[in-house]
Structures are given as C-alpha cells and as structure tokens.
C-alpha cells in the first residue's frame, strides 16, 4: 500500500513546436518519467480553459501546456494568448483549492528535445512534492469514469 505516488499529468502540445520537440526527445532516447499523457493540438492557443478544468476534474494531478517560443508561433501569436490566459487560470485554480504550480506553461521548440524531457522531469518532481490533486480524491471516491 506504500506504493509511491505517481502523478498523472495531462499535456497539451502544439503540433508545430512542442509535439515535434517531444518527438525529438524520444528519437534521441532522452529518458524522462512516464507520467505525462500528451494531447496534440494544432496550436497552444487552442487550449480552452475548459479543457484544463476538465483535466483536473478527471483526476489529473497536473496540466502542462507547451507551445512555440514567443514569436515563433506557427499561428503568429497563439502562444501569447495561452500565456496571458495562463496567468488568469492560475488565479482561478487557487480559488478551486488547487496549487497554481499544478498548471505549467512552457515554450519548447522543435529542436528542444532535451528541454522537453527536462521540463517533464521537473514538473513530475514538483507535483510529487505537492502530492495528489485534492480533486483526485473526489474523482476516485465517486469512481468517476469517463468513456
């Protein structure tokens, strides 16, 4: 029963930079903990706040949004919008009783496989420190299963 807590992290990666970066990490065999579940979106700007709350509701311990570097966005400025939203969202999370560190917004380019791996490593460690998401308990209690 004393099995170590392994957080589940949902990651939204933009198709053009971060998803490619994650590919590069794999291709280069850069190892990182298997706690991340990746959802591919065309642009980090696509990530609707609703998705993030849905993720936490569904029992995620953390959410990672990763897009192109400022200025590199394939869609001009989608990533800016994400960033701006991010600040707001973190405040909201707090009101929901979730530590803002559970939401992380990153810029990872197609050539930054190493950075991607590092980000995931770091985030997993941070969230291990925070422990399971308070929402998660409820999710499991209610035996919530979405399918």
């Amino acid at each position: 029963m004393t099995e170590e807590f392994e957080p589940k992290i949902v990651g939204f990666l933009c198709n053009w930079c971060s998803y490619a970066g994650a590919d590069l990490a794999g291709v280069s065999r850069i190892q990182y903990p298997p706690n991340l579940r990746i959802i591919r979106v065309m642009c980090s700007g696509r990530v609707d706040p609703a998705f993030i709350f849905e993720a936490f509701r569904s029992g995620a311990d953390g959410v990672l949004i990763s897009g192109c570097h400022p200025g590199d966005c394939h869609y001009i400025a989608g990533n800016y919008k994400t960033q701006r939203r991010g600040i707001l969202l973190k405040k909201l999370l707090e009101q929901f009783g979730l530590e803002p560190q559970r939401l992380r917004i990153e810029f990872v380019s197609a050539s930054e496989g190493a950075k991607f791996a590092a980000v995931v490593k770091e985030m997993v460690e941070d969230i291990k420190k925070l422990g399971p998401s308070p929402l998660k308990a409820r999710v499991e209690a209610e035996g919530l299963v979405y399918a």
Partner: protein
Amino acid sequence: MEQSKETPRIGVFICHCGVNIGGVVKVPEVVEYAKTLPDVVYAEDNLYTCSSDGLNKIKEAIAKYNLNRVIVASCTPRTHEPLFRATCEEAGLNKYLFEMANIREHCSWAHMHEHERATEKAKDIVRMAVAKARLLQPQTEPEIDVTPSALVIGGGISGMTAALCLADQDFKVSLVEKEPELGGMLRNLHKLYPTMQDASESLGHFVKAVKSNKSIDVFTSTVVKDVKGFIGNFKVTLQKENSETANLDIGTIIVATGATIFEPVGMYGYGEHENVITQLQLEHLLKEGQLKKPEKVVMIQCVGSREEKGRTYCSRVCCMTALKNAMLIRELYPETEVYFLYRDLQTYGQRYEHHHREAQDKGIRFIKYVLEKPPEVVAGKNGKLEVNIHHALLNEQIKVESDLVVLSTPLIQHEDAKELSKMLKVPLGSDGFFFEAHVKLRPVEFATDGIYVCGTAHSPKDTAESVSQAFAVASRAAIPMALKRLRTEAITALVDEDLCSGCRVCEAVCEYSAIEMQEKEGKLTSKVLEALCKGCGTCGASCPTGAITMRHFTDNQLIAQVRAAPQVAKEVTKHD
C-alpha cells in the same frame, strides 16, 4: 456524413516496430487491453504496421470487420500519418476517420528502462486515441491554387543557383538580396577548392546568367518586410532601402540567406596584434595579392568552433579553406614555413583527402592540438609572435617564432535570421542555423508547407555542397508549383450560428483575419473564411459561448481525450 451517424466500429493496430516498441512495451498486453475499450471491434499487433503487409492487414480488417474508424498505435503522426491516412482512403475510409497513437517517440523510446510503466502509459495513450476516434468525423479538404512563382531570399551562390534552376523550369522567380550586389560569401573568396577555380570569375558567370534571365526579377539592397498567407498563396512585402515597397504573390519561398564569419575578438591575440588575422582576411590578402612574404605562418583551426559549450558545432569548411590557403602561400613563397594546428582534419569525401596529401607534399607542418591544451599566442621579439604549441601527439611543448597567425573561425548565422524565422514561422536550431523538417529525409524543407532552405543558412557548407542543396530546393519547391493545385488540411474553424452571440471576440483574436461578421435574420454571427483559416483554434479557445470549434480537433474530441488521460488503465471497464 454517412459514417458519422452509424455507431463507431474501431480497429486498433499496434506496432512492435521491431524492438523499438516491442522491446519495451508489452504489445500483446496492450492489444488485449485495446479490445476492452468502447467501440473497439478489432485489435491486432504487427511487427511493422507501416510495411506493405501491415498496410494490407489494415485494409483487410476494414473490409472484414467493416471498420469505420482506424487507430494505429506506433510512431509520430508527423512522419507516418500521411501513409496510414492514404491506406484508409484506399480502403474507402475518409482519411479523417484515422487516428494515431504515438507510443514510440512519446513512450517506448522515452522510457526504455521502465517496461511496466511504459506499458501502462501505452495503454493510456491508446485509450485516449480511442476516446477521440469515437468522435471523429469525415472531412473534405478544400483545394487551393498555387501561384507558380517563387521567392528566393538571398542572392548568394545558393540563391542564384536555385533561382536559375527554377527559372529554367518555367517558374517566375523573385530573388531578394539585402546587399547592393549579388554574390554573397563568394564575393570575399579568392580560389575555390577543390577545382581552384577563381571565385570572382565563376561568380561573374552566375550574376550575368541571373540578371539576363527573363523569368528572374532581382531585388538588390532589398529585404523581406512581411510574409502573410500559406503555401501557394503567400503575400510578400519587400522593402528597398530607399523605402519603396513591393508586394508580391508567391507560391513557394526559399530561404538562402547564407551565413557570416565569426569574429574571434580577444582570442589568440586577435584585435591585439595586427599580424593575427582570420582565414577570411588571409583569403582577401591573397585575392588582392597583398600578402607580404612571411617567414613562418601559423594557422590555428577550430577557433570558436567545436567548443565544449556554446558553439559546439564543426564549421566543416575551415580545414579545407586553410589547407588551400596554406598551399597558396607555399606556392607564392616556397621558403615560408607553414604550421597547421588542427584538432581533427575534416578532409572528407573523394577529393579533399587528396588536397591534404598535396599539402603534405608541399611540406606544410601539421600539428595536432587538443581542446584542453590550445596553443598560446604572445608577443615575441621584434614584432614577431611567439606561438607556444602543445603537440598532442608527441606530448611536447613546441615554440614557433611566427610573423603571421591565421585563425580559422566558423560560419555563424546572421543576426537578422531570428527576424526572418519569426516572419516565416520556421525554427532555428540550437546552433542558430535554420532547422529543417527532418534531418534525414526532409533536409531542405521546413515543417511548414511551401517554405524551403538551402546553403549555409541551413548549416556550414562549401560551394559545391551549397550548389547541390540549391538544386534540391529547386526540385522540392517546383513540385507544388508544377501541380498548380493542392489539397489543404480540413482542419479549420467551424461556427455554430445558433450558439454564436456575435460578441466579436473571435474576430479580434484571429491573426489571419479569417473571421468576419455576417448579418443573418437580423442576428450578427461570425463567419469563417476557409481559405484564410489555418486551424489554430485560438478563436475556439476564446469563444465565451463555445460556438466555435475546430474540425478534427473539436471540443468534445479533445475533452474526451482529456477525460481519458488521467484514468488508470486497469480501472477502466468496457461500458458507455
């Protein structure tokens, strides 16, 4: 949309990819798990799903189990999605009813030593794919026209070669050079290895050919100010220094902006002693016949390249350039002793080693040094320089009284490249050079359709290699322009007019002005201009009423994935 109405019948094909996946993830276990997932009517594993027999298996299964959704769990969609989509289409399935689960790059390769957890993760990834696949809809791709004219940015040898080759294929070419003259780096060079042709002479022919070619418009002292649009339909604004601008309709864009040379200020007494110069400065002296007879010349390679940190890359051209110039010096002044301090000689290919042997014939003295113990250059007696060398292969300290020290410094990216990369939305690598779509198999194109790269903008190269690449882009860029029409991804925004409140947020956030407002029965709603929409989905994310979604990345598809993500595989049981 027939298929969408009937209940989903999903087939899941899980790839071992030899041992790439199978060596880490327990594939059969994942297959069994997939079978338990909602709407999955068939699941199997293949040694290589992408092999032609793997693809046949998919087609057979579609027919046999009358699948209306297909999932392949293997590698990244960025390389393999087109292949599997095409396969589905051959089996009569709309290609947007295909979904890919990346259990290699994102799983087996990233967690090679955690077989258990990698297998769990693979199951989750498949589950997420299923969750999305159940909600997939067929789509029809809009067709677009391709303007048969190319923009070549950079008037160096690469740019000119590409321009000429495209022009000869009957495409219109706009060649943009920021300098007042065409020629780029070659304008600084004296002789070109391996043939020892005269640089300015060869360059002359090219400039003449370019200028006299009716299909090529040359814009010198001009920069690209702005680029809008997409493959086949770029809108490009050029700016001539005297502030007049030109607007062009462009089908494809070729980046041939070249590179510049690193200035080794503060290294080996450069900038301190005037007889410490760069290889490029020596090239100039030789070109102008201004090199006074030195008694002893010391050439130092890898100055500011192949460093521990920072500029880690090898600049490729320096060894040969230095060899060439060392030989030219010996031909000019046979009594002059030339010391060649190198780390690893980059005399590759079928011709360059031969030059190395020639240099040995000419009595050039080769001494290897190592990164840990670089040579030192200090002021010596009567204006000479004292070079203290640690001969790495004799473990001896050698002192050379030299009157000319030549530093081989690497090619580096131009300062303004960042600007261009932002303008074109194409990435730069960690080395500062433009980063191609795929290092192995897409060496001269970007992930973004219709934009290509060649020459030293991509990485250090010599003339011959730049020319080779220039021909390559001329082929890649010609393909869409020759086809004239293209199908584009159907991933565009979709407005639910009933939900739309006409708040205009979407109109404001769209960078492509792909959304305009329309009056319908006295109600203001937003309308998507498909040709302009790129499908980023920013509008969808910012729509307060959730009236906008994206084709193939709909809210409910993504939310389904979101919900499926955090669950623990073993908890999931098949039900709706």
